[in-house]
């Protein structure tokens, strides 16, 4: 692939923001991560644009940065909006109950360690193979499988999850 940086951001920026959000669960942190990754990519664009999969490289930056605790979120704090209400009662309509259940799942996801969350998002949102995930997070496929298994086990094992699944019937 090759093309302008502007074209890439116009075409893929939204997808990266969506990925960043499900990865972090935090709107402001995800914007920060994506902006930072794209800013780094901007400085290397002549080379990155020549890669077969620039997306993969940029996602890798985002994931690596997410795994780092050393996020400087503070630059965003002053413009932070109050967090969205997460209570199930905030939803209404025919699909309100199902949405509330997914919000509960969303909160459970937030409680996972970062590695497990990243692996689950890459597998179930991005649809990557364990091998691709291993390359992206720089570990072995066996480690990826272990993180995924542990993450899913924690979700399954949660009483809240069980009630979600039972209630969804």
């Amino acid at each position, binding site marked *: 692939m090759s093309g302008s940086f502007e074209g890439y*951001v116009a075409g893929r920026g939204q997808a990266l923001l*969506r990925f960043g959000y499900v990865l972090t669960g935090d709107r402001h942190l995800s914007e920060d991560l994506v902006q930072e990754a794209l800013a780094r990519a901007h400085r290397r664009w002549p080379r990155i644009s020549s890669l077969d999969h620039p997306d993969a*490289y940029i996602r890798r930056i985002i994931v690596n940065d997410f795994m780092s605790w*050393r996020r400087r979120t503070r630059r965003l704090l002053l413009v932070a909006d*109050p*967090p969205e209400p997460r209570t199930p009662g905030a939803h209404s309509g025919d699909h309100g109950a199902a949405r509330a259940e997914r919000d509960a799942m969303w909160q459970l996801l937030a409680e996972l360690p970062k590695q497990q969350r990243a692996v689950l998002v890459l597998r179930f949102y991005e649809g990557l193979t364990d091998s691709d995930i291993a390359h992206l997070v720089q570990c072995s496929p066996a480690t990826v499988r272990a993180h995924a298994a542990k993450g899913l086990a924690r979700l399954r094992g949660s009483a809240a999850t069980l009630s979600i*699944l039972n209630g969804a019937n």
Partner: protein
Amino acid sequence: MPSVEEELILTLRRHADTVPADPALLTVVKARSRRAAAGSRFALTAGAAAAVALIMLASSVAIDLSGFGPRDGLRPAAGPDGFLVDTPPFVASFPLTPTYLPSGLRTQPNLSGAPGSANASYVSTRAGKNGRPVVAINIAVVWAAVLPARNPPLMPNDKPLAARVHGHPATFVRSAAGSDTADITWRVKPGQWVILSGTAEWSTRGVVLRVADGLVARTVRSAGQFKIKLAPPGFKICLWSTDSISLAPCAVKPSRYSDKRTIQIWVTGASDTVNGRGKPVTIGTHTGWLQTVGRGQNALNVLVLKISAKTRLMISASSVALRNAAELSRFASGVEYLGPTHHLTVD
């Protein structure tokens, strides 16, 4: 009954669908790119990115756990109103000093660090495009069993080259990817690494190797720019740079740090971004504003204090770290900004 996997997929997709388009993304990204290219105020160059990553997982970082063990790992059980306790003076230190630096650099470093790492950055005497000095040489010491991965990762054509520093096998990498950087990494001893990077005209193999070869074990110390007199019990300074400092509970692993768990202090210029945000407040002799965003455990208090016509002292803390605005105000009354001058000493 849907499986956990199916429920997870639906959850992720539904939340992804709530992300609005950001028409200003390109503008913001380019502005950040320009700032970073001109030199980060955190003195972390692209070549030092591996050092930044130093703490990424921090599995082997030693954290002082003595004397503190709240069950929630956030802060001890609430005490009386006089909750904050005296905190000992903080001194940043860096264990290495270069005996050689290229001409055109300031000889006094900017120090920064975190649990398991320390950085010394040497900046140019002349200003870069943004009017600030360019970070020319960055030296990072990382205490870790295994060196964390670089971020951003190497490009396909960035070939690591073998080198030697002080007799130790080393890896030299030079990237010509937009902002020229070069770095050399070696293990001083098991559990201790050094990453030395150069940028721009200081990114040649010759410069980087010569600075590396000239490093000696002499400790540089700096009292930093802030005095912190009070802190919640169990909190200590976990992250510092020339113009910022963060405190976190000793019991929390670095990998679990977040803005929810830390108290962050920094200085910034007066601008519309910070002026007039929130309720007017007075802390000691300083006036400013206090803004609260979020509620409950998600509440975050951000305090802006005018310490000069052009400088603002910023303190942010969640209700987990400091329970309310009053506690933040009391904490802030014990924070003193010493000014931009660094008082360095070398052993």
